[in-house]
C-alpha cells in the first residue's frame, strides 16, 4: 500500500526561486527522515527518484553508509554525506554545519575505519576543480593521514606504535579492535569539510577525541607517527585548531 503522505510532498515554505535543501535518506526510518527534514525546513526523499532545481542543495543521509553512498554523497548534485546514527537534533546540527561547507562528510569512527574517505573526497573535489595528478595525490595523502590521525589518535585514543616489531603491531591490532567494539569510542564523529577558494582548496578534518597536539618526528623508531610529517610536506599550509580537534590543510590549485 502506498504511503498516503509520502515525505516528498510537503516542501518547506521557501520563497520561489531560492535554493532549497533536499535530504535523501538511505537505510533510515521514514518517520525519522521526515522529522529531521522538518527541523531543517528541507524536502525529504526516501529514494533517488526526485527532481530538484540546479541551485538546490542536496545531502545524503545514510543509516549504514557504504562506499557507494560516500562516493555518491561527495559528488554533484550532492554536497554532503552524513551518517545517521544519532538523535535527530544532533543530526540537524550536522546538516546545518554541512550547509556551511562546499563539500562535507560526517561519519562515525566505526564507518570511517572501513571506508575510503580520502579517495572519495578527492574525487568529489576533482569534479569541482580540475586537479593535476601530483596535486590530486597530495590532497588524497594528506586527507587520508589527517583522517587516520583523527580516527586512531583522536577518537580511539590509541598511541602510535613505538617499536618496530610484529608484537607491537599485534598490540595495536588488539587495541584497535577493542576500541572499535566500544560504542563510547566508535560512535565519535569524524568530519571532513571542504571549502573552495579562488586558487586553493581548504580541507578541515575534525574529531571528537581529547585534543591532539602533533609532534613532528624524525628518525625511524616509531612505526606509525609520520602522518603529520607527510601532511606538512605535501600541503601548502597546515594549522591545528580548536585545541587539536581540527586540522586545517590548504592546497594550492
Amino acid at each position: 500500500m502506498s504511503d498516503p503522505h509520502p515525505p516528498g510532498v510537503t516542501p518547506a515554505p521557501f520563497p520561489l526561486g531560492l535554493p532549497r535543501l533536499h535530504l535523501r535518506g538511505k537505510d533510515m526510518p521514514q518517520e525519522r527522515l521526515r522529522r529531521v527534514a522538518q527541523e531543517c525546513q528541507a524536502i525529504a526523499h526516501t529514494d533517488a527518484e526526485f527532481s530538484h532545481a540546479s541551485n538546490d542543495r542536496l545531502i545524503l543521509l545514510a543509516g549504514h553508509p557504504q562506499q557507494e553512498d560516500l562516493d555518491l554523497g561527495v559528488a554533484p548534485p550532492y554536497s554532503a554525506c552524513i551518517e545517521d546514527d544519532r538523535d535527530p537534533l544532533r543530526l540537524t546540527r550536522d546538516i546545518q554545519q554541512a550547509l556551511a561547507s562546499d563539500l562535507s562528510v560526517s561519519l562515525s569512527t566505526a564507518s570511517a575505519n572501513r571506508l575510503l574517505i580520502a579517495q572519495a573526497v578527492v574525487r568529489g573535489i576533482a569534479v569541482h576543480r580540475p586537479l593535476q595528478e601530483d596535486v590530486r595525490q597530495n590532497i588524497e595523502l594528506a586527507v587520508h593521514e589527517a583522517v587516520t590521525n583523527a580516527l586512531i589518535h583522536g577518537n580511539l585514543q590509541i598511541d602510535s606504535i613505538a617499536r618496530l616489531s610484529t608484537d607491537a603491531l599485534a598490540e595495536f591490532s588488539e587495541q584497535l579492535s577493542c576500541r572499535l567494539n566500544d560504542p563510547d569510542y566508535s560512535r565519535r564523529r569524524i568530519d571532513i569539510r571542504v571549502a573552495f577558494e579562488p586558487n586553493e582548496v581548504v580541507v578541515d578534518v575534525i574529531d571528537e577525541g581529547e585534543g591532539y597536539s602533533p609532534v613532528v618526528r624524525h628518525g625511524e623508531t616509531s612505526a606509525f607517527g609520520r602522518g603529520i610529517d607527510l601532511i606538512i610536506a605535501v600541503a601548502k599550509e597546515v594549522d591545528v585548531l580548536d585545541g587539536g580537534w581540527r586540522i586545517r590543510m590548504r592546497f594550492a590549485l
Partner: protein
Amino acid sequence: MEYASEAADDRLVVRLQARLTFNDHAAFRAMIEELQTQDARDVIFDLTALNFIDSAGLGMLLIAREELQTNGRRFVLRGAQGQVRRVFDVARLSQVVTIET
C-alpha cells in the same frame, strides 16, 4: 593489501598489490609471520603493483625490515612508482632502506 610470493634460488620476491595502509595491520602481520617460515636469504618486496601507501604502510615496511634483518635476512624494496614512489621521496625512505629502482 594483497600479495603473492615467489621463491627462486636464495631469493624470495613478495609482490604487494593495491593499497598498503593502516587498515592492513592484521594482514601485514600475518604476511611477515608467513615470510619468516621461509628460508631465502634475500627478501625483495616488489611494489610495482602497489598504487597507494600511507605513513602506516611505511611503518609496516620498516617493521618487516626489522624482523627480517633480525633473522639475518637482507631486505630490499623495488619497483615503487607513482604515489608510492612520491611518498618514499617525501619521507626520505631511501636514507634508511635499500631501494632498488
